[in-house]
């Protein structure tokens, strides 16, 4: 043992073991139990431990599950697209058009460090029927009646989440832009590219890894977001996480909740891999 | 320098996975010697130094310092201290505390410690800079602090890993002389790793030349220059023309050869170079060749050719001459005594060489 600790590999393993064991155990153990639960059934407080596919069958056939799952993925996709599209110009601005890079990066990240719950709550106040935006527009005389399309729908969910995840999109894209050797851009110009061509043929392909990283880091957690659909989604904006919470809470059907969690995780994983493969292939097509 | 052996390395090997970084290293250093390990990057010289320091274990062989086997002695217990390539000045401590860092472990009185720190800083001409912060030091000053911090421990051996490579050219040359002076004054053994042949030659008593993990030759600088043991060593130190030579007669201390392009010559046998037969590789230093428009008088062999290129170095001019029967152009260096460049491209010239200027480099494939 003492001999092992003297080698480089031994020291490395010993020092990193507590952290990786902690995460490993808290990923593997709950997952194992989740899988077990997904094959059990529950009536009131009794857990019936006979193995059955019933939960998976229910998850596959119940139109509500399919509907919420699909909507979650579509909303997460929309959030990802909107956030990345809105963030790219900012990342570009910070990387290429300003000397005060650290100040801008700090300004971008500060709001993110405030409580997520409170920010979502604040959007609810802004977008509401008698909310800040409507009342402001009315007092300015721009509208007569409050706008009703603002709150309690998919739009509100996408807007709120695009706000919440902004730094997660800006930072990876900024890093990949920052890494671009400036002489590559000069070479492209030298070889006859216009500014736009240069962006499309050099800058954009080189930032594909950053875009993919940003997209995954936003997409995966967003599919399972609970707070935003609950607060600003209304009945139109509910997502799969709300259904899962109901199973673990009011409905008290843990086996179904476990099944939904696993199905959600699998769907997210599948969608994420599909996206990464497609985006990489697309990036390579640009010559 | 005394006759006492201070470092004895025998049969030392170091492997990283399947890569052998240091092969069968044998080396004995005298007390008070300034020794340099010279070689290209990746040749294993730094690994060798770090094994002496104790930062790397060796896989085979033994390392002894002052007669004591270092096998199970960690770096912090060895009578050797190191000046790091990056200098490794502790950024959170000032100059005085940096120098006193190791002393605090020795249980000295406060006054003793203060005196020793002051002496050490005085020695590297940084007297009175104890309170200076680490980030307020120039490159040269950092180098001096690193030197003082190691020397204050009064080590038997000082190890230096490319100590001057971070400095600019003028400062580097000044520090070379200063470190040499300091080493002679203190009489401590210095072991320095460098890739700079001039640095090694100006500072060292002896130089060991390493290639691909193997120590090829250990000698005084002037011997290394005059009698390199093979082509690799010869080409790494100074400029050299390589020519094939056929051995036509063996006279013991000399051999008769037929030198490519030049013809018959009688040259000294190089005791450092391994056996030869029937051919040997001969080397001629560019500055040992005479060049002229006419056939030079009083030379043992001559050759006629055409100037193909000229390189002006300031203190000398190098002419590259193409001659029949020689594949590579031969370079001849002429000291720039009169601020003139006597030949131009395309000129017909003669090269003359003396027997004593032709170096026997042993078998061609050694």
């Amino acid at each position, binding site marked *: 043992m003492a001999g092992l600790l003297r080698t480089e590999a031994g020291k490395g393993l010993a020092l990193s073991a507590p952290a990786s064991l902690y995460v490993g155990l808290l990923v593997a153990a709950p997952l194992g139990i989740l899988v077990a639960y997904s094959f059990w059934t529950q009536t009131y407080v009794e857990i019936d431990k006979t193995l059955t596919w019933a939960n998976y069958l229910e998850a596959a056939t119940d139109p509500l599950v399919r509907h919420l799952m699909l909507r979650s993925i579509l909303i997460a996709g929309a959030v990802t697209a909107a956030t990345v599209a809105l963030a790219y110009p900012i990342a570009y601005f910070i990387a290429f058009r300003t000397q005060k890079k650290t100040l801008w990066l700090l300004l971008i990240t500060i709001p993110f460090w405030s409580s997520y719950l409170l920010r979502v709550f604040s959007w609810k106040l802004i977008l509401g029927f008698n909310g800040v935006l409507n009342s402001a527009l009315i007092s300015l005389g721009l509208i007569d009646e409050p706008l009703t399309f603002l709150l309690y729908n998919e739009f509100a969910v996408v807007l709120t989440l695009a706000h919440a995840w902004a730094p997660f999109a800006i930072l990876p894209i900024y890093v990949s832009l920052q890494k671009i050797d400036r002489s590559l851009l000069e070479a492209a110009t030298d070889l006859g590219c216009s500014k736009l061509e240069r962006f499309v043929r050099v800058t954009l392909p080189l930032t594909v890894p950053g875009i993919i990283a940003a997209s995954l880091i936003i997409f995966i957690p967003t599919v399972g977001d609970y707070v935003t659909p609950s607060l600003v989604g209304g009945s139109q904006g509910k997502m799969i996480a709300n259904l899962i919470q109901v199973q673990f809470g009011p409905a008290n059907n843990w086996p179904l909740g476990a099944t939904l969690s696993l199905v959600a995780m699998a769907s997210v994983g599948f969608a994420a891999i599909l996206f990464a493969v497609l985006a990489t292939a697309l990036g390579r097509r640009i010559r | 320098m005394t006759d006492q052996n201070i470092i004895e390395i025998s049969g030392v090997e170091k492997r990283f996975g399947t890569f052998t970084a240091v092969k069968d290293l044998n080396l004995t250093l005298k007390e008070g010697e300034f020794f340099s390990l010279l070689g290209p990057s990746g040749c294993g010289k730094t690994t060798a130094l770090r094994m002496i320091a104790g930062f790397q274990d060796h896989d085979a062989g033994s390392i002894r310092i002052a007669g004591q086997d270092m096998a199970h002695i960690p770096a912090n217990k060895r009578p050797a201290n190191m000046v790091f390539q990056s200098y490794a000045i502790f950024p959170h401590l000032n100059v005085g505390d940096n120098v006193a860092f190791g002393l605090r*472990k020795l249980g000295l009185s406060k006054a003793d410690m203060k005196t020793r720190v002051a002496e050490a800083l005085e020695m590297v001409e940084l007297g009175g800079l104890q309170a200076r912060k680490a980030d307020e030091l120039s490159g040269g000053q950092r180098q001096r602090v690193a030197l003082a911090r190691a020397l204050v421990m009064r080590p038997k051996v000082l190890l230096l890993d490319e100590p001057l490579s971070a400095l600019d050219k003028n400062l580097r040359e000044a520090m070379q002389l200063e470190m040499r002076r300091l080493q002679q004054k203190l009489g401590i053994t210095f072991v320095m790793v460098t890739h700079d042949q001039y640095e090694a030659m100006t500072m060292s008593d002896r130089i060991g030349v390493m290639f691909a993990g193997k120590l090829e030759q250990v000698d005084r600088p002037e011997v290394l220059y005059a009698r390199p043991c093979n082509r690799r060593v010869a080409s790494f130190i100074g400029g050299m023309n390589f020519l094939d030579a056929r051995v036509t007669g063996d006279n013991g201390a000399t051999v008769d050869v037929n030198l490519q392009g030049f013809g018959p010559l009688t040259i000294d046998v190089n005791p450092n170079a391994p056996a030869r037969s029937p051919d040997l590789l001969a080397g001629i230093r560019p500055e040992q060749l005479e060049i002229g428009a006419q056939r030079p008088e009083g030379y043992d062999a001559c050759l006629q050719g055409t100037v193909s290129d000229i390189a002006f170095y300031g203190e000398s001019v190098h002419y590259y001459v193409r001659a029949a029967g020689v594949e590579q152009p031969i370079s001849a260096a002429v000291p720039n005594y009169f601020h003139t460049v006597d030949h131009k491209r395309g000129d017909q010239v003669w090269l003359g060489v003396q027997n004593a200027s032709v170096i026997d480099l042993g078998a061609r494939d050694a």
Partner: protein
Amino acid sequence: MSEPLNKPLSPAVSKARRKPIRFPWLLAYAVGYLIFLYLPVLLLPLFSFNDGTIVAFPMKGFTLKWYAQLGEQDTLLQAMINSLTVGAVTALVATSLGLFAARAYVRYRFKGRELSEGLVMLPLVIPGIIVASSMLVLFISLGLKPSLTTVILGHVFVALPFAVSIMKSAFDDFDQSLEEAAFDLGESVIGTFRRVTLPIVAPGIVASLLVTFTVSFDEFVLAFFLSGNQPTLPVYIWSQIRFPAKLPNTLALGSLLLLASVQLLLTAEYFRRRSTKSASKSA
């Protein structure tokens, strides 16, 4: 032909020449984006001083009474104590685990290093609801009742990636020959850690403590599932959001929390900068 030769010599001049006065679209967009980012964050404090229960324009008079009322609520005080406890313990545990792991990743090459590095970053990309539900199931199965302990176990899990990446960048800029130099000068392994490593990465440790504390302090979903009848502040706020009459108090409380988070993070940022600055000075 003199034009291209001039270019590298006078970048300022050529830049000015190339770009005539043009409307800075990107800058305008960036400023607009900042307004979008800050709007909801600044709105809470703004209306927390509004003398009315409805959050809408036009605003009524200025008042501090919503803040004053906060002190009278015992459940709020208990939730605050819960959150502080959870945050402090989480910060300590996550930072210790992160400190050792980061050192291993930066300093040593060993089998499974990349696997381990990937693993500790995993909590960042698992949807919160899945972490929360699966941990709830696990803890119940193990006989652990939802409590502050289970919240801490969950929070260490989500805070660990932050601790590891902060400590990794602190060690990244740390010149390894500093430790060798200390060792070479006769210091022991532990002495080297105490006299050289720790002082130099100390700002990184402080930054990690502050960030992981903030992550825990603001976290809602895990606490919602795992806190049982010991609510943390975000869980308490969640319970208050439903009551319109409590809205102004919630705004006041939220504003205080925003202020605290931002303050903590700016302090962390200060220390993080100092850590990279001090470590890179050694070269």
